[in-house]
């Protein structure tokens, strides 16, 4: 016999049990239901073991309902545990035969032809596989047969070890329900209507009539039911996973030595990418950090274990175009790490790349030259290193009533726009027109200088209107006020706002410090003499001692923060 199938029944449940069984021995023997969902309200049962199903739990049941079943353990589904369980299953397979097919997450098939001389008879091989799986925390069914399909079906259908001698496939598989063949939904429905419940019943149907009714899919299914299907093993290939990992003998604390390590890993990674004619569109680095050193002595196991757990530092770098220049990638990575260094010495480094096709572009002969995308990215990364992430890019106006609101978008070179389709261009034009429409009129003589962040000020009001304003310690009187311009919104969030905005013309009256030190951003500069001419009363004794300065501000009262702020100044 040539093939052994290893199947993990109740795979999802077993994966979780495997991960938790050390902490909770005996878990395997209990009724377990796994829940999953996007958010707490949506949690529902996605898998359950036979014991749980026997209590009345069914798949799709809400968590709240499932919780009402006494004696059923509710656990969250764990994709990571499933990955680990699958990896373990692969290891079990590979431990016996290098020719292995990863048929499904819960099933692998091995080519065991010729292994008898090495490992003993089939039964011994099967027992070995079950034992190894047990060591890895998995309870498996193993079936050995002459052909792949028979082995696969038998592993899915029979518990424990099944050995099917050549020629006995049809009779052995015949006992199994037809569902083990995983028929397509439509055929499954037809078979159910026909009362075809077992593989034997399906195998008995005459081929021409079956072909007339269910087509070749039906005939193929019948062949499977007879255990007569044959196919070639699809030997598992390594995935297109580009990961390079290095454990460091001595923890690295500084960027320079780390750069060497990263450089080496990136060189290898880029070489592999090049060999496959691919490039990295995303780069991920992960450092295992040394646990913090603790002086305090705490011998409680869980505390020690928690403290000994290595920290993880992870950064993901989305690249603007696929790249495989190791030097450039290293520079980008360095800049990124400079901006936000890991907080502890590094003991293990992993660099992973997400691969995609490299960029192939040809620049127009007569088009103006644009900065090279890679270099531009480098520049932006440098800037981000200086000013912080999220503070570099193109400012975009946000569709909101909230004054001064904007967000930083990705900086896009002009040449990218040139590639836009006419429809996209028209859409962009429309949106820019909309923005224009809502921006202050550019033809106005006055421009507005925004304070970012807004300047806290103090305001004294009279009859509900600002009368006195203190800006940066200077007192001013309000000459003219226009407002309030009231906006509020986002009441459904915790970050709601509520502001009363005023446009003010204020007059600062300071003791003379030589009026010629006029503020560079001052609007109108008038002396007391001018005011006297306008009939504004002045104190005669101080006339020549005071300088007057008129400015126009936009201030607002923030009702949420309960404070006054200056949003900006009119130039």
């Amino acid at each position: 016999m040539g093939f052994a199938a290893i199947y993990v029944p109740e795979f999802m449940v077993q994966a979780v049990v495997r991960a938790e069984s050390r902490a909770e021995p005996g878990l395997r023997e209990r009724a377990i239901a796994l829940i999953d969902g996007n958010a707490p309200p949506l949690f529902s049962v996605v898998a359950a073991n036979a014991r749980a199903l026997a209590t009345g739990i069914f798949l799709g049941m809400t968590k709240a309902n499932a919780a009402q079943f006494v004696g059923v353990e509710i656990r969250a589904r764990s994709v990571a545990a499933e990955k680990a369980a699958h990896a373990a299953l692969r290891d079990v397979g590979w431990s016996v035969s290098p020719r292995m097919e990863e048929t499904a997450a819960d099933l692998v098939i091995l080519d065991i032809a010729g292994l008898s001389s090495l490992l003993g008879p089939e039964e011994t091989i099967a027992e070995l596989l079950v034992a190894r799986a047990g060591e890895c925390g998995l309870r498996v069914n193993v079936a050995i047969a002459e052909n792949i399909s028979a082995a696969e079906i038998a592993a899915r259908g029979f518990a424990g070890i099944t050995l099917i001698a050549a020629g006995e496939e049809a009779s052995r598989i015949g006992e199994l329900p037809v569902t083990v063949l995983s028929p397509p939904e439509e055929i499954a429905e037809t078979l159910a209507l026909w009362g075809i419940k077992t593989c034997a019943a399906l195998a008995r149907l005459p081929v021409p009539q079956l072909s007339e009714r269910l087509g070749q899919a039906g005939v193929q299914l019948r062949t499977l039911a007879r255990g007569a299907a044959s196919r070639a093993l699809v030997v598992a290939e390594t995935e297109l996973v580009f990961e390079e990992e290095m454990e460091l003998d001595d923890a690295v604390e500084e960027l320079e030595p780390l750069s060497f390590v990263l450089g080496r890993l990136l060189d290898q990674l880029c070489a592999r990418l090049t060999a496959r004619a691919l490039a990295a569109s995303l780069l991920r680095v992960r450092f295992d950090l040394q646990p913090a050193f603790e002086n305090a002595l705490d011998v409680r196991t869980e505390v020690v274990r928690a403290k000994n757990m290595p920290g993880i530092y992870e950064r993901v770098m989305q690249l603007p175009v696929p790249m495989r220049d190791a030097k450039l990638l290293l520079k980008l990575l360095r800049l990124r790490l400079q901006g936000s260094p890991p907080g502890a010495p590094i003991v293990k480094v992993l660099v992973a790349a997400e691969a995609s096709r490299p960029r192939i572009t040809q620049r127009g002969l007569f088009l103006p030259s644009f900065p090279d995308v890679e270099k531009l990215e480098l520049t932006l990364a440098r800037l981000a290193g200086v000013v912080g992430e999220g503070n570099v890019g193109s400012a975009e106006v946000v569709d909101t009533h909230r004054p001064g609101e904007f967000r930083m978008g990705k900086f896009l070179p002009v040449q990218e726009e040139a590639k836009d389709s006419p429809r996209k261009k028209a859409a962009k034009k429309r949106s820019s027109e909309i923005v224009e429409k809502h921006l202050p009129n550019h033809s106005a003589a006055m421009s507005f200088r925004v304070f970012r962040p807004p300047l806290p000020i103090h305001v004294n009001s009279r009859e509900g209107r600002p009368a006195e304003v203190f800006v940066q310690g200077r007192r001013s009187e309000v000459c003219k006020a226009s407002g309030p311009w009231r906006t509020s919104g986002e009441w459904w969030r915790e970050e709601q706002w509520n502001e009363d905005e005023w446009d003010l013309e204020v007059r600062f009256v300071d003791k003379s410090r030589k009026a010629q030190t006029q503020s560079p951003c001052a609007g109108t500069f008038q002396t007391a003499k001018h005011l006297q001419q306008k009939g504004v009363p002045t104190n005669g004794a101080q006339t020549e001692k005071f300088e007057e300065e008129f400015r126009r501000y936009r201030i607002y009262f923030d009702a949420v923060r309960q404070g006054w702020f200056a949003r900006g100044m009119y130039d």
Partner: protein
Amino acid sequence: MYCELHARSAFSFLEGASIPEDLIAVCAEHGMPSMALLDRDGVYGSARFHLAGVKAGVKAHIGAEVTAEEANAEKGVSGWRYALLVKSRTGYQNLCRLITRMKLRSAKGKGSVRPQEVAELSEGLICLTGGEEGALAHALESGGISAAIKRVTELCELFGRRNVYVEVQRHFCRKEEARNAAAVEIARKLQLPLLATNGVRHARPEQRQILDVFTCLRHHRVLANAGRLLSRNGENRVKSPQEMLQLFRDLPEAIAHTQELSARLQFTLNDLGYKFPEYPVAKGQTQMSFLRERAHEGMLWRYGADDEKARQQLQRELALIEKLDLPGYFLIVWDIVRFCREKNILVQGRGSAANSAVCYALGITAVDPVKMDLLFERFLSDKRDDWPDIDLDLPSGDQRERAIQYVYERYGKLGAAMTANVITYRGKSAAREIGKVLSFDTETLARLSSLVGAWEYRDANDSLERQFRDAGFDLKQPRIRKFFELCQAVQDLPRHLGQHSGGMVICQGQLDSIVPVEPATMPGRVVVQWDKEDCADMKIVKVDLLGLGMMAVLEDSIEMIRRDYGEQVDLGKLPGDDEMVYQTLQKADTVGMFQIESRAQMSCLPRLHPTCFYDIVVQVAIIRPGPIVGKMVHPYLRRRQGKEKAECLHPSLEKVLARTLGVPLFQEQLLRIAMIAAGFSGSEAEELRRAFGFKRSVKRMKEVEEKLRAGMAKNGIHGETQDRIVQSITSFALYGFPESHAASFALIAYASAYLKCHYLAAFTAAMLNNQPMGFYSPATLVKDAHRHGQRFKPIDVMRSHWECLLEKLPEGFSVRLGLRYVKGLRAETGQEIARQRGIRQFTSIAELKRRVPGIQKSELTALAAVGALNFISAERSFHRRDALWQVERAARAAGPLLEGMDEAVAEAIAEPIEKPQQKIKLEENTPIKIEAESMAAPVGTVAVGNGASPLLQMTAEERLVADFLGTGMTVGPHPLAYHRAALRAAGVRSAVELPKLPDGMRVRVAGAVIARQRPGTAKGFVFLSLEDETGIANAIITPQLFEKDHTVVVHHPYLLLEGRLQNQENTTSVKVERIESLTVTQAETGSHDFH
């Protein structure tokens, strides 16, 4: 003093956030003397606004914002509206016509008026330049000040210079202030008055959130991405005159003009000018003389010539009808009834009209009010200022539509219309839409909406909080909390306008001058902008043409009896004392009977023990939330059984309550109690009745109660007696029946009982043809009929029609199930099968496929699975699997090579197959016996040619599963019948045994759950009806047990219950102590839940 002259309510559908009553209430709080409501393209809220205004002493001006140019976001067109106020009745009529014209030519929610229409219909209207969506803002935006001047000048030309006001609004917005500056400039330049308004969109500041939610719904956005579509701030609320004065202190004239303009707006909805149409009579006759003639004819027909009492009553009524000038109304209803009779459409008046001898004589109603001594004043009284109300019950479906279309034809498209039905935000719809706006994902929304309102009853632990918790929601989370609050805030706000199921309003002349008319979704129908209540409030006469499933059943039954039995049944002449009917009712054997079939009715019937028609009237009225909450059921039953003395609430009420043994059961009695005990006048009593049925206001009922108590105190009725009387009356808020109405329903109930007792086959077939209706599923109806000896024939393409029909057999009639019961079979396919078969019988499935080319594979499979193709071959009958085998081949095009190849040939060339191990028994030409099969697997069959298949015949269990899956029922034995021996061995009693067992005995019962109820009046108790092959057993589950075994009770289709038998007064039920699920079959039997 400032008056708000530009407000929108939630009747602007998603453009306003408060109901009209709220606007008026805030207006009154601020001491504002008047307010104008200008909803978008309609006067939907005007009636409620007007009434609320009258009550609060606020003058309610009417107007509307009428679309001049539609906004189109895709084309970047902003659109604008005329803001119109009604000055006079002509103005109101013009506004209604303007809106009607626009609506009738446009899709729902769309359309705009044309300038020439405005020019033609501008008289009596005042135009404001509007706010953000007004004429001025639009012109300024598109063409600056010159365009704005031009637009305002145009308005002056259209409406007259004196009738245009330049509107200014202030919501603390820069852009608006710039517009105001332009408005002031234009007003001064054109010498037009300025008018301050606040463009109100919600009454109170907090309702801004609802407005934002509505905005999102209107634009199909979520709050997170609605951006500047949302309101800038919460300033569009109703502001006090002081606030407005302060806001416009620089423009005092704009404030002053509001009061001036308000004074100019003389029109109110009191001045509607509605007239009911006149019935055309021959020259020399008046409507009254014509009515007298018809009534006299009718009296002779109904009572004969010698009934003096009837004659006197008729004369009294006719005199009152003449005094109130109502002959036209009676003649018009008579005309509709006459039309129905001519067209053989079953019709019967109900409601208070049944109190009238004139209605009885005219054939409008079928209850004799003279014999039953019904209160005519409940129907018509000279003290009442509203119109009488006549409801006509018609068979649901096409027949009712014919009657409605007759009314349209007779009075013209603008002479008659359906009343609207305002669809409001309720539990589920509110939860779904608000969840959407708050960006909850679809799955969460589905879960949420499934949570809301599942059970009618909610105990203390069954609060919304608990339901949220059950679904994994945490109300402490701000987002969930906000969702919850908004759901509550949005409750009962109008969502959109639907069409009332049967209410029609008719008008002399043009209905569109009374209220705007819109096209309904259903082609050929128009609907007014007011709902039933509004129409009644505005004193518009309406006739309800209601569809009643049972009327259709009666009509169909009578037709089948005529056709198949060769007998004529006249519902008007049924013997009123049929012994069989009363015996059946006394046994509560009433499955399928109108109004008396529910579980509660059944438990009451043996105790009430009806022996005459009036008992059925009481029976219909007594099992209603009103009498139940008012605790009137048990006293009545005890008194009836002589276990309690028939004492009256108060000696003065003896005469009123004598007929119902001192217990008030009918609305009329309560009105009379109010009149006698509290000194209410006829109209006050009527006001009381309206308050009961007035779902909108708990407050209104409270006011009435206070008045009642004061009146009773004055008449010396105090203390407990007063409380009991008040409780009796107020409990009718939860729907008590008027006696006349109960009598009309009792007639139908009696007719249905009569037909079921004497013509079971016809009645059952008619019931099956008019599903869904009533309390029980078709499966239960079939099983019930079975137990009464009715035979059924399965669905068969060689015999079945689309409908269920009767087949005459030597031993009587059997019901042949119709193709309509094959799930997934389209009506057109089913009808085509019957038509083709009428031409020539089918000989094979392939031929059927060929002759009915539209048939889909899924339909053929469905037919085969339920055994409908078993007899298609003339040579032999198939079993279902043979048919399924053939269907798969017939459904696939075989291709030219194999097209003609016979199955046997195909087999011959097939590879040899291993024979099954089982012993083979051939079943050729053996029809399948449905009724006498065991659940054991049949012996196998194998392909031997002659169209057979290599498939095994279905077992009885498989057939059961296929029957329920494919038709929702089985005509074979009840699923439990197969297990009776085992059940008996386990000590389980059948339903038929229970009444014979002693009270208090511990019993076990088992069955399919056919109804689960947790009524609002039952304090958390759950009532189950379990069906087995012998009948229906009732069970009661305590709230505690339900709490414990919730999942089993709710989810399992078959239950085994154990508990104490309550066998009292011929009523049997099991008080459950232990619940177990029972595995009987995989068949999916349905249950009627959560009533």
